[in-house]
């Protein structure tokens, strides 16, 4: 098992394998996005109270899920990077950060756009909004710490420690903020036994969630590939790879 992980973690093997996987992830993302968006924006019935405006949840909710999911991925990568010193985990961690920040930002912006007609204001100091905003700060902290340290190996370790500290704190922050103030409608999907959302709305929502996962997989592989090339620019295999591609 460990041997297999180490093999996968070696940059040249990762580079070749990810190159093969990338078109698949891209295709799956495009297909699920078309399905989810068409289903969500045209086929799903109108909401009784919220009208057509509710349809933004097909972007908003999956983006909010991704914002947390990606932080968990980053923390896992951070732990792997610190414990086994696998370079690829460092690369994955730092490649994930901007994507996670983007999803957090999308969740905040779509939430604000939705909030204007529904709550009558773009922003309320509601628990979920606030903890999402703090999550955005955590992402930005990771990105700026990485950018500030010149030696990228050191920077990766710093970021790994920060991601782990962050992941311990996220539940604490989340529940503190929840306890502090809440207006946001309760979760409607996580109650798996009997979701309070109708099935015709649930399906596009879940399809969009899957689609965003593929988008993340696609983006993180693209970023990680560039990062790997940049880090290993002096090594033989990169030279072969580049020369093989151009001539």
């Amino acid at each position, binding site marked *: 098992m460990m041997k297999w992980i180490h093999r996968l973690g070696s940059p040249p093997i990762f580079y070749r394998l990810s190159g093969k996987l990338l078109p698949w992830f891209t295709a799956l993302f495009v297909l699920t996005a078309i399905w989810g968006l068409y289903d969500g924006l045209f086929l799903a019935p109108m909401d009784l109270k919220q009208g057509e405006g509710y349809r933004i949840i097909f972007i908003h909710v999956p983006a909010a899920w991704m914002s947390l999911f990606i932080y968990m991925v980053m923390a896992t990568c951070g732990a792997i990077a610190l414990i086994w010193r696998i370079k690829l985990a460092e690369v994955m961690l730092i490649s994930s950060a901007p994507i996670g920040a983007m999803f957090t930002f999308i969740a905040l912006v779509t939430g604000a756009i939705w909030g204007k007609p529904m709550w009558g204001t773009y922003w309320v100091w509601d628990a979920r909004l606030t903890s999402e905003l703090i999550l955005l700060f955590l992402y930005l902290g990771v990105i700026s710490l990485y950018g500030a340290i010149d030696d990228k190996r050191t920077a990766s370790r*710093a970021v790994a420690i920060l991601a782990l500290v962050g992941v311990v*704190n996220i539940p604490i922050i989340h529940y503190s903020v929840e306890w502090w103030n809440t207006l946001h409608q309760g979760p409607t999907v996580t109650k798996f036994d009997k979701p309070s959302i109708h099935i015709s709305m649930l399906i596009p929502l879940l399809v969009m969630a899957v689609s965003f996962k593929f988008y993340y997989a696609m983006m993180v592989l693209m970023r990680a590939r560039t990062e790997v090339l940049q880090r290993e620019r002096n090594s033989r295999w990169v030279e072969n790879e580049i020369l093989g591609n151009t001539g």
Partner: protein
Amino acid sequence: MQASSNFSLSRAFLFLLKRDLILAFRQRSELANPLLFFVIVITLFPLGVGADAKLLKVMAPGLIWVAALLAAMLSLDSIFRSDFEDGTLEQLILSAHPITVLVLAKVTAHWLTTGLPLILISPLLAMMLGLSPDAMGVLLLTLFLGTPVLSLVGAIGVALTIGLRKGGVILSLLVLPLYVPVLIFASSAVMTTVSGFSASGQIYMLAAFLAFAISLAPLPVAAALRMSLS
């Protein structure tokens, strides 16, 4: 070298604590700076939002806590800065004792020289903002429980950014989001007391944060220091 390995852990802890306290007291002006900052920030608020006594009374717990947060953050850099620059930190890491305990000693010294003065001056400021006397006790209690958490969590941020030339702004970006739970529970404890209810829940929560931070925060600090010095 033989002697240092014979040093018991508790003696090493006390020795480092004493050394840091002496160093701090030899630079008294630096000690006063965060405190002055705290007082000035509190003074600015009535000037900014108006001198309406009712408004200030409502805002007092939050104001004091936000100001304490900022003051604590500004003083964080001094936990490791001078030791990092003259190489002492490297020696500490090379010593036979676990870094986590030494980190705890340094953070304790830092809290005694920055957190404690803050607590001592806060009743005066709370009184100026018109906080009621029974809420004062709760405010002091929350500061007692909360400021050590700020020092401990802040130490993680400092350890991560100590090698950077311009670590200050990044430090605030890293540390302030992590301060949110303390701020929420501490100011809410005081506000609940002001409105006449028992704040024991929030205070237990702060105590839990403190226990959690004392036991866990030294680990990432130690890891980050090793990273910063490698």
